[in-house]
């Protein structure tokens, strides 16, 4: 009887311990107005690790926190609102994350694998002396993950032995969490030192576009070197508008100055996985394919039948894009 009792007690102890260990902190990405959609994908990924808390830090964080509290699977929202957290510079944000970690002892601290997440997660990891895991595409268990390497040409399954898992998740690999149905409590973040003054945010220049964001677009039309000039990109925009699609580009098109670089799809640009990806005048270099090969249906339009893009395209059209694209736009 005694041993049975102690067994029950130790099981109970184990359960509470594992549930405490299985809590995860998602560092929310937002612009002080609206939650960035990659955070929704990150919340889905994080919920595979256990209870989800979300940290919203910023100059106008309370407003965003109210949106986050309604997201499904979110149990707790931690808010840090301060003018010094404007633009969420990693140097100051790291203090808030660390103060939260000290108080709540999360088992994992995670963010989306965007420019924002890649900036903050390794910095916090350094402070905690743990090795981060980047760009996770699959969660096998609370310590085992898969991530791509070599521009997506190899998938590495890793086991993290770190006492706290510091992870960035690839947004396109996880479905977005629903923005309603949740009812998380909102609480203030523990106080932290925001006096770090060796960095200053000077401003940003965002590409203005009425088209859907590449990360969440259902259809993407992309142009490459074959498009020939910035003016010719109008063909791509016209087709995209017809399809209500986002517009992407290969590095060649960006380097040639046809389009701004935040439109680049690939290993070092954006990783996308829309329902339909139409690659126009793109040869299909390893680095580009790394950013779009998880699209559901891929269409390639290219006059070179030997272009590597045709090896991954569901539908290839060997044609001059200057004829085929206007014809396609007109027919839709």
């Amino acid at each position: 009887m005694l041993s049975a009792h102690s067994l029950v007690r130790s099981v109970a102890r184990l359960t509470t311990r594992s549930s405490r260990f299985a809590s995860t902190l998602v560092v929310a990405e937002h612009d002080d107005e609206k939650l960035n959609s990659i955070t929704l994908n990150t919340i889905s990924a994080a919920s595979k690790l256990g209870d989800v808390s979300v940290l919203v830090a910023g100059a106008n964080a309370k407003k965003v926190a109210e949106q986050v509290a309604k997201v499904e699977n979110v149990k707790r929202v931690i808010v840090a609102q301060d003018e010094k957290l404007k633009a969420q510079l990693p140097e100051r944000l790291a203090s808030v994350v660390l103060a939260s970690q000290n108080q709540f002892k999360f088992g994992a601290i995670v963010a989306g694998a965007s420019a924002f997440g890649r900036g903050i997660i390794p910095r916090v990891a350094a402070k905690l002396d743990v090795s981060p895991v980047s760009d996770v595409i699959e969660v096998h268990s609370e310590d085992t993950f898969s991530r791509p390497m070599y521009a997506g040409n190899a998938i590495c399954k890793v086991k993290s032995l770190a006492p706290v898992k510091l992870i960035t998740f690839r947004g396109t690999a996880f479905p977005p969490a629903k923005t309603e149905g949740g009812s998380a409590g909102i609480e203030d973040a523990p106080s932290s030192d925001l006096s770090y003054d060796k960095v200053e945010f000077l401003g940003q220049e965002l590409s203005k576009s009425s088209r859907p964001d590449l990360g969440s677009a259902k259809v993407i039309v992309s142009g490459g070197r074959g498009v020939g000039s910035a003016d010719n990109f109008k063909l791509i925009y016209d087709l995209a508008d017809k399809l209500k699609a986002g517009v992407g580009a290969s590095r060649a098109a960006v380097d040639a100055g046809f389009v701004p670089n935040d439109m680049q799809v690939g290993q070092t640009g954006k990783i996308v996985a829309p329902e339909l990806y139409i690659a126009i005048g793109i040869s299909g270099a390893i680095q580009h394919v790394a950013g779009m090969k998880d699209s559901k249906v891929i269409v390639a339009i290219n006059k070179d039948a030997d272009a590597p893009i045709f090896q991954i395209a569901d539908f290839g059209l060997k044609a001059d894009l200057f004829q085929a694209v206007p014809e396609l736009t007109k027919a839709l």
Partner: protein
Amino acid sequence: MRVLVGVKRVIDYAVKVRVKPDKTGVITENVQHSMNPFDECALEEAVKLKEKKAAKEVLAVSLGSAKTQASTSAWNADAVEVLRTALAKGADKAIYVEVDDATASKLEPIHVAKLLSKIAEQEKVDLVFVGKQAIDDDACQTGQLIAGMLDWPQATFASKVEPDGAYFKVTREIDGGLDTVKVKLPAVLSADLRLNEPRYATLPNIMKAKKKPLEKKKLSDFGIDVKQQTQTLEVTDPPVRKAGGFVDDVPTLISKLREKGVL
């Protein structure tokens, strides 16, 4: 101002890598290697800073295992060769930190960051400049880790850097466009591809580079504990996508896409 540039030897970007049949990694033997393209950009910018008299000295650092196979081809030059290239492109001095093969296979960005942080302190550098990511592990961590360890400000994914006294104004590539931050030295910068166009090493400079100082050290000289935190369980091929073949014309393409339900 003294600049430390971290350079990594990786499988050349144009090589289609192959996964080993035993799933322990990718095949690296007899595969062309070169300097990580992002590190080339970081190095180029550091050399430009020197040419503009904004920097006094550029120190290139790399770590890796020495050649072990007898049948090493010219392609398989080790990390020392990457440093000689850095010297030929304008670095003043290089430090090669040698690790044995077993340790090399366990190295994670955090270990590299610990080493570079230590060298940055010992060498009293004002700026650590690295590539934004290595194209082999695609981790994108080292610069940020160094900044965290040293408590220095970080300006990642730089596409433009402007020195301004004790500060650097850095334009960064972010998801929706660009942003600009001002960081106070000492600081850590990481280079994006748009930062510049790296120069080629000319033959006379390759010859001159042979006379430049190249220090060889061991990882143990720095007291870095390579404690593994991330175990690789297996490395596999990604799911293969099959080509679907060609369609004859635009109307056929449209009807096929309608059938698939994506239009």
